[in-house]
């Protein structure tokens, strides 16, 4: 193969963008996640980011980040195993462990890396990993990379999961993997029941709580709190870039697991540690949640419900969600892009999902109205949605 052939193979199919006359991806953002954001120079309403609690631009979080930069600089230029493990890093590990209610925690540069690195470190070809069919790419790719046999189960379907567990014998270890909040659907896993099934079949439960941490549970501590799961013996991962409004990812669990991963998870060992500003930012968010979660969550729920009602009134098909997410079932990838374009043209930035992020022909347009929006802004969004629905 010539060099020309190589690059020709990589060229993108732009037919979908041509049909929709719009590419919703890689839009240039010219501002922070303020009440109004600037996109390609235009003022818009952000219903696309995962800034659930609206804390990404909170002045207290920004100040904590600035102070960390002043104390430590912008980077420790090393992995956590070398120079990246500063006192702030260690303190945040402890705070996050306490927050999610587990023994110990590792902090990685992203939850994608956490999920990618986890399975290759703890599983291999002798193992079986049973995973929810709608699980995030980071989990699927991580499982594939481990070489373990993968068996997906139907989304949130306990009966199907149990039938697989019943028939699976001869493996060194079985892991059951799912997410807490499935953000493309807005659905929440019946995790307490999944943990019980794992116990019955001696499987290790693994949960990615990326869209749950800082968002669900009585005090925002995520899926384990929300479902009243005590004494959790499994593995927990989560993003620090959604409800917790910063970046990075964590793996939490028993001390023996975390001690092992500290030396055997290459995604941790060989990645430059998260910068001090981010570590301080997460710490500040945890402090804010302690006092303000109730207030922020009430607003988040109120906004989600208002938008849900406007979507129904506008004639959209939208899943009823327990999470503060509205997911419009848009159909084909073309229809999904066209709906995202209509929203964009009316000043709303949304997140469209097409295959392979969702099953073929089951495109979704996700709307998340963060707690930093005002009631007036949400009323404006509702009016726009109803208007678009009537077109």
């Amino acid at each position, binding site marked *: 193969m010539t060099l020309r052939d190589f690059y020709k193979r990589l060229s993108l199919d732009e037919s979908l963008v041509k049909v929709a006359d719009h590419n919703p991806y890689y839009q240039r953002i010219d501002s922070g996640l303020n009440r109004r954001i600037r996109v390609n120079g235009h003022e818009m309403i952000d219903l696309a980011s995962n800034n659930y609690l609206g804390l990404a631009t909170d002045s207290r979080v920004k100040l904590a980040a600035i102070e960390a930069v002043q104390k430590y600089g912008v980077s420790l230029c090393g992995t956590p195993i070398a120079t990246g493990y500063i006192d702030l890093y260690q303190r945040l590990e402890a705070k996050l462990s306490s927050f999610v209610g587990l023994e110990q925690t590792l902090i990685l540069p992203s939850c994608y890396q956490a999920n990618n690195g986890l399975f290759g470190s703890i599983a291999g070809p002798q193992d079986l990993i049973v995973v929810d069919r709608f699980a995030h790419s980071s989990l699927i790719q991580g499982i594939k990379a481990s070489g373990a046999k993968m068996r997906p189960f139907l989304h949130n379907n306990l009966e199907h999961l149990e*039938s697989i567990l019943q028939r699976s014998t001869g493996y060194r270890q079985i892991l059951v993997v799912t997410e807490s909040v499935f953000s493309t659907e807005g659905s929440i896993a019946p995790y307490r029941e999944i943990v019980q099934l794992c116990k019955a079949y001696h499987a290790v439960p693994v949960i990615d709580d990326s869209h749950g941490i800082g968002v669900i549970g009585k005090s925002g501590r995520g899926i384990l709190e929300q479902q009243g799961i005590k004494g959790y013996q499994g593995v927990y991962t989560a993003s620090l870039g959604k409800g917790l409004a910063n970046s990075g990812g964590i793996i939490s669990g028993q001390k023996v697991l975390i001690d092992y991963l500290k030396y055997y998870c290459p995604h941790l060992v060989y990645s430059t540690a998260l910068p001090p500003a981010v570590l301080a930012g997460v710490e500040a968010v945890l402090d804010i949640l302690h006092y303000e979660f109730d207030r922020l969550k009430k607003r988040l729920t109120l906004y989600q419900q208002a938008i849900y009602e406007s979507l129904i009134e506008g004639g959209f098909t939208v899943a009823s969600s327990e999470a503060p997410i509205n997911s419009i079932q848009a159909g084909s990838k073309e229809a999904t892009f066209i709906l995202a374009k209509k929203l964009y043209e009316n000043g709303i930035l949304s997140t469209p999902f097409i295959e392979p992020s969702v*099953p073929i022909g089951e495109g979704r347009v996700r709307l998340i109205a963060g707690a930093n929006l005002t009631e007036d802004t949400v009323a404006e969004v509702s009016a726009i949605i109803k208007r678009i629905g009537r077109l």
Partner: protein
Amino acid sequence: MNLEERIIVAIQSILEKRPQITLESRWLEDLRVDSLDLLMILSALEDEFSITIAEDDFLDVVTVNDIAIKLRARGLSDG
């Protein structure tokens, strides 16, 4: 049930919302089967026929009938 009918029932258990499944149904065009659906279907077939299936051997299937042909080639029959 013959082998083909058992295959269709196994596929139906996974693709609950899809249109009617026949031997002529095409994976992509008719059933919109993606890679994870395929894995679930292969697992369902493993359970149904008590066999082990290597995923790579089934990546070239186009229709439901192609599955039947592959399974018959492995010595499976209606019995």
